[in-house]
């Protein structure tokens, strides 16, 4: 053990080589908790540190990853009309297809994000902060499965530089980094992240080709070569089975109401997540297990989760009560909860401690407002079929204001005490 430590210590670059030293320090503190001892103040310290906090959130996402990987493959082959038995038919192929599809996304998100973090850490001369561990795990899960990698890299770079480093690094950002990356794609390249055709991976990337997936599929479909000037995705879209749609339940609900959703997806499918959508947000039970883990470990704020749930339910009920100005409003509130990415946003996005309100009362208000605003954007806005991303970013901006008023209440309570005394 100590020999290994000595061995690793030999590679420590000199402090003058800033970037190398920061890089080494980042990986070294990852492998070994540092030997720092308390200096002033308390002599013993809690075993909890930021690495552990962040890593536990990543762990809570693990099930979402597993399901997301499988679902990419499932949707892909469903679009092609292959493995048409049930969800588990062709499990191996589906899983491997999904894994090969998500791997480049995962790697690009981390290389770009961590690269920028390392660069800024070296530049500012502090050690690497762990903020991106969670952002990097979240970003692939909220992207469409066939997002072009250059677009992803650009979005991550934008989010980390403009969203975080410009404000001073981890702990200083105003907006949620992962959502900022998504909103960047959303507004800069709307074609890639809206409509009915972006939520399923049709194409094959070079990894798939390397493992022969494209050839196997073409053989199974009985085609020898793609027509001139046609990508695989276009070919597939022109030849999808009749019963198949790549539209998400929300898109269907916006057009045709609850009946339209029911025509294509059963409640069972929507609850367990075998539907098109962003990679990690479809499987509700696994998200709820992650949420349970965060609450039990005390890492995610149950206040935000609960009040967001209440806010969304109440707004949904209100819309049901107002009636059907358009079809979406009449969708019963209980279905609204698991048609889209509500639970994912609730468990992992709204609870980001840096961008959420920081007082207990403020958290309740913050969560409730997200629930309300999110439902309004989702249902009443004709342009965006889902509301949580925009609602959370919107409330991120308002979180300091909420805190301000909560603190002001505390301050005036104290002042009143002086006057009455």
């Amino acid at each position: 053990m100590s020999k290994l430590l000595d061995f690793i210590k030999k590679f420590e670059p000199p402090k003058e080589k800033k970037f190398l030293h920061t890089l080494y320090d980042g990986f070294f503190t990852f492998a070994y908790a540092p030997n720092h001892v308390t200096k002033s103040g308390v002599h013993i310290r809690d075993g909890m540190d930021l690495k552990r906090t962040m890593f536990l959130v990543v762990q809570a996402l693990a099930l979402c990853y597993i399901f997301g990987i499988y679902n990419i493959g499932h949707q892909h082959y469903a679009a092609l009309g292959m493995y048409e038995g049930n969800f588990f038919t062709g499990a191996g192929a589906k899983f491997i297809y999904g894994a090969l599809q998500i791997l480049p996304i995962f790697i690009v998100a981390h290389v770009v994000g961590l690269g920028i973090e390392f660069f800024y850490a070296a530049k500012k001369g502090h050690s690497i902060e762990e903020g991106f561990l969670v952002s990097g795990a979240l970003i692939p899960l909220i992207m469409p499965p066939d997002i072009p990698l250059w677009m992803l890299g650009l979005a991550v770079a934008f989010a980390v530089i403009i969203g975080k480093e410009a404000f001073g690094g981890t702990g200083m950002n105003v907006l949620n980094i992962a959502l900022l990356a998504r909103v960047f794609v959303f507004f800069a390249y709307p074609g890639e992240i809206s409509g009915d055709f972006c939520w399923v991976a049709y194409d094959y990337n070079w990894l798939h080709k390397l493992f022969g997936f494209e050839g196997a599929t073409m053989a199974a479909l009985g085609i020898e070569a793609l027509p001139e000037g046609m990508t695989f995705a276009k070919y597939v879209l022109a030849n999808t089975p009749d019963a198949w749609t790549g539209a998400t339940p929300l898109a269907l609900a916006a057009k045709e109401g609850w009946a339209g959703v029911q025509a294509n997806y059963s409640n069972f499918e929507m609850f367990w997540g075998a539907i098109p959508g962003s990679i990690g947000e479809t499987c509700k039970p696994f998200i709820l297990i992650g949420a349970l883990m965060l609450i039990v470990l005390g890492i995610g704020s149950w206040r935000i989760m609960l009040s967001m749930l209440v806010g969304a339910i109440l707004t949904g009920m209100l819309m049901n009560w107002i009636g059907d100005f358009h079809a979406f409003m009449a969708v019963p509130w209980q279905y609204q909860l698991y048609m889209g990415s509500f639970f994912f946003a609730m468990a992992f996005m709204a609870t980001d401690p840096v961008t959420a309100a920081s007082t207990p009362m403020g958290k309740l208000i913050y969560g409730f407002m997200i629930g309300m605003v999110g439902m309004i954007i989702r249902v009443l806005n004709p342009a965006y079929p889902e509301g949580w991303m925009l609602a959370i970013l919107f409330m991120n901006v308002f979180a300091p204001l909420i805190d301000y008023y909560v603190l002001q209440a505390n301050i005036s309570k104290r002042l009143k005490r002086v006057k009455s005394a």
Partner: protein
Amino acid sequence: MKIRFKRSILVLSFLGLATFVEAQAIGGLSNAMTIALATVVLLILLVAITLVGDTFLRVEAREIGADESKANYSIFPRLSEIFGTRRASHLLGKNVVDLKKGHDILLEGAAEKVIDTNFAAKTFAVRPRDFVGMSPIPKVVVEKGDEVKAGDVLFYDKKRPDIKYVAPVSGEIVDVTRAEKRAIDQVIILADKEQSYRAYNKPVLEELDRENLITFLMETGLWSFIRQRPFDVVADPGDNPKAIFVSTFDSAPLAPDMNFALKGREADFQMGLNVLGRLTDGKVHLGIDGRAKSNPAAIFTEATGVHKTWFNGPHPSGNVGIQIHHTDPINKGDVVWHMNPQDVAILGRLFNEGIFKPERVVAITGAELKQPRYVRVPMGASVENMLKDNIKGEDKIRVVSGDVLTGRQIGEKDYLGFFDDQLTVLFENDNYAMFGWLSPFAIVPSVSNTFPGAVLKEMEYRAETNTHGEHRALVVTGQYESVLPMDVYPQHLIKAILVNDFERMEGLGIYELAPEDVALCEFACTSKTEVQKILREGLETMREQG
């Protein structure tokens, strides 16, 4: 346990809600059935795993003999813990304040209730820097080689020359040491075998008016034991405090048991309280241990002429600042005074016996000691004898005057601090830990639920000084609030101090806090922020601003 129980119910109800929603979906009865069945199976599986784990836990506890303590080693609360009365019988009908927030850090090495004379000291030191706010170079009126009696003046602050700081024992001044910038470090006295005391006309409390009483206390050195809030400094004799507080228990880790320390000192303690009663127009408040397991001694519960409040809850319920907040909070412009219970007895003895004999019962604690015990010594005692032949292993140690949260690191031949009645010896853990941040089974005290201690509530830890991580920007919120049982937002207060926003510091209640109150916030902080240091700086800024 209870909080976690509630949380899991909350999330289970999420799941239940989803199932309910699903069951509403008419048209797919089989779907609803499948979901319901799957949920039930999942639940049964979870319960089964939990039960098996729980059984293992209890079996393990029995095997290692840990269950002899009759503590609850199961994950589940006992029926009596759910339905039983939370309040102990001796608290019924009393003025009890229940504090829910906070955290007890259970450490190994509590002092055995024996007074061991082997630990008694020969040399003593008084350290000006123990008195916050004193100028660094006080006027020292003795020189090396002088003979002093217990109670003779050693030095005074040039800013407040009336308040005298006196010798704890009679003997020879062996040294006056200096620190950086010629600041006086310590005045060291070698004690005589036979103690002699400075002679006074034995005062009669009833015959002194308040002004003469204060003059007498300042001259005899007793004044330096009285501290004031806000700012947690030695009290200003010009003030008229709205109340005086004495917390009769210490809830800090391994803290001395005041019931034991003050046994047989009933008359002195009561007399001390009477003296304090003359110093204020308001009340003298006594904060009494209301934690269910303990039963405070009659010396506290039967004290007269005071307003008694029982405090039930984890640390920091014994901190005087918390008790002030819940009985008579400090507003802007208010001054309250407070005193340690053992010092109240010293004050009482001055009036009962006419001598200044500042003896305290000191707890010598820590997992690194062979014999953690008590000793009766005057203040500022040398720790040399306390540590001699008393260190267990070969590991590097750290010696702390005070408790592990608020104490000051000292050398192995140094002296206890002026206000400290505890010595803690802990393991100086400057080792690297491979994947130290990752291990789910690390035995480390923690406020979070991510270590085995979250379930094994009775587990005691070996205290060690590793920071368990590096300093980071503040990320996690709500953590400080969860361990500070006050209507204060400590994290926002700390931020206000960091940006020097006076108005906000004042508004958020900086006057109500002393560093010791936020020590637990500092312990719990995921980002390893030095909360006590920041708060002290904030308090000093406010004090300078007037």
